[in-house]
């Protein structure tokens, strides 16, 4: 009987953690731009942090889009 109580508590804790995380992500606007999020992962570098390369273009870390 006792293990069941622990397990129920644990499952609720884990599930509740996931729920809280989701609500936080939703509130902080992380679901506001789903198209952008899907594309941003492919961007070359964070804008404005690296100076423009002199002449040659940097090698691509990901395969060409077709």
């Amino acid at each position, binding site marked *: 009987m006792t293990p069941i109580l622990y397990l*129920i508590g644990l499952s609720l804790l884990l599930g*509740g953690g996931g*729920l809280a995380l989701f609500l936080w992500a*939703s509130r902080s606007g992380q679901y506001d*731009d789903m198209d*952008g999020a899907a*594309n*941003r992962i492919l961007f*070359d570098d964070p804008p*404005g942090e690296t100076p423009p390369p002199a002449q040659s273009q940097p090698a691509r870390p990901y395969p060409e889009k077709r």
Partner: protein
Amino acid sequence: MSAAALASAGAAHAQAATCAHCGGEAAPGARFCCTGCAAAFETIQQLGLGNYYRDVVRDTLARPLRPADAPAAALRTDLARFVRDDAQGRHELSLAVDGLQCGACVWLIESVLGRDPRVQAARVNMTTRRLRLAWRGAAGDGAALVEMIERLGYRLVPFDPACLAAAQDRTGRELLKALAVAGFATANAMLPAVAIWIGLFNDMGPATRALLHWVSALIAMPAIVYAGRPFFRSAWGALRVGRTNMDVPISIGVILVTAMSLAQTIAHAEHAYFDSAVALLFFLLVGRVLDHHARAHARAAAEQLIALQQSDVGVLEDDGTVARRAAETVPVDARVLVGPGERIGVDGTVEVGEGLLDTSLVTGESLPVAATVGARVFAGTLNLGAAITVRAAATGGATLLAECVRLMDAAEARRGRFVMFADRVARRYAPVVHTAALATFLWWWAIQGIAVADALLIGAAVLIITCPCALALAVPAVQVIGTGWLFRRGVLVKSPTALERLAESDTVVFDKTGTLTDPALHLVAGEGHDASAMLLAATLAATSRHPLSRALAAAAGPVVPAQGVREVVGAGLELDTPEGTLRLGSAAFVGGDSGAAATPSLFLARPGQPSVRFDFAEALRPDAAATIAALRRLGLDVHLLSGDREGAVSAVAAQLGITAWHAGCSPVDKVARIEALRAAGKRVLMVGDGLNDGPCLAAAHVSMSPSTAAEISQNAADMVFQGASLAPVAATQRMARRMRRLSHENIALSLAYNVVMVPVAMAGYVTPWLAALAMSTSSLLVMANSFRLRRGISEGTSR
């Protein structure tokens, strides 16, 4: 198009190059289609952002990335009005972005702005196509930053984020949170529930079972209160005014089943249905969230289209300077300067100058009319001629706009409230199931004489089984897939009932100007349009933004724009060559024969040669005839109502084989015709774009307008379609009918499930695990059936 024009265009097409910046057609051998593109390419390379060209995937529905298509944002609108300052001295601006092709554009815009030391933050939301820009320094620097992006080919329009889409987003977020809570509760209430179901075969002790029931109750009940609110609120709203909708049986079912299960749990009984109740809400919320997002997406895109049309009015101050103001804030009797190619922002009378006005969006008249001093002009008209000064008239009840708004309100009030198919089903369904559940309870309790609690439990099982989970998903599932399919093809469905109404329509009424015909003017074949004259005229015209120049350049195909062309505002273009001065412009400007001024025309004067006249006229959209034929095949009657002259209308009607046409209609006439059709029992689809079509769009059973339509018409229309093609009208009609068929199939499926399961429930054989299984199966079946929509339609239209 003339034979010569065709020949020269054909020659150009044979070896046309692709512009390295915008991807459009360029003259043979040229790298760019225009100087703007060349400059943009240069800028991007200098910033070391050339990777953009490797990554960009062109979007055929988006505006091509050609700079200088319209006056710069800073000239169109007063940016300062939209700039907000925060406590740290940062200035912030929200802008709608036009011309985004793909993710690479987001990267490009953010990178370009990010390299500017003044910029604090630049973030493009790709879903809503909006840019949030924050910078330090002078508030006026915003204009420079905006111009920097506009020079790359994008168009930016400032907007006030407080006015747009804030309220509806709250609904979306509330639904999403409710879904999350329901999902969490379903998963966790299912755990003890499954344990109990297995315990049934395994001799679970009553104490353990009671504990697990209590755990289920503690998880499920708060979740039901929280996640059920959207349903309870809507059901209460309907009941309070004496109606029912789909949410009424859902709410009654969920509340009764929960109360029942609580009573069972307190009594330490064998069965409780907490998991079913919350799973039901979860399934329904999935449908609601998807449905809401699809529509919010379409509405945001429609808002964007309207925002992009807006521009400020240039008010002429007493000291002779021009101040940009929002049209609503222009005082009566202010003098407004309207440049060539600019839309008039206010109603008024012409005070200085002589303009050539394109009133197609306002009255449906296809040919531009001359406006001399003292002529009355209306907001929304496009000035094709020289700059004019307009004295703003009172925006009281006498204006054309005010009349249209009044007619629209009246039409909308007369149009009855449309009841969604699902709600019509629910109205019949709810009383039947509630009676069945009550009868079952009474039968077992009063006639069979079993304990009240047991009889109640069987009654509750009937409610659970009949709770219209599949029924409530039947229509939204189809709607989500259909709306998404249309959205990707440029049709924005704004009203939730639009497609159901469209599927019912049996008559289609078209407006002529700008709807059946192309909103842009086309070159008419004429004398002396040989290849050399065309090419010469086009190289001059390609440097100008004037609508006639653009029509001429478009007819000639891609050319290399001439260097050193001077634009004489309101007159024409000049170019000095070794042989003498070339001129392209009005008759007076080139000194040619003026002829009849009935049609808009340009003259080309070359030294030592007779001047060549280019006439322009409206032309049908390229697929107008095919679309009309397709609509006829779908069994629709085609009508044409236009405010234009009889000759122009009858020509178009004859070309398209439309026999039911009326010319010279005022907005009042148009509405009267629509209402006469309705009185004859027809369900009318109205397709129109002008201000004068607004009342019709509101009066018709269902309405569509192109994205080039006047703002008021786009607001009134149920659906907006983008692009130069008219085909979306027929495609949407086909889609709407398929959707109706699938919705009916889905409803039939879920009713069939009820017919099978309800007797089982009434006989008292349904246990919680069986209820959960049956409910999930029927919901999944309906969802799976809805996906057939996507498969069938892509085969059907890819011909």
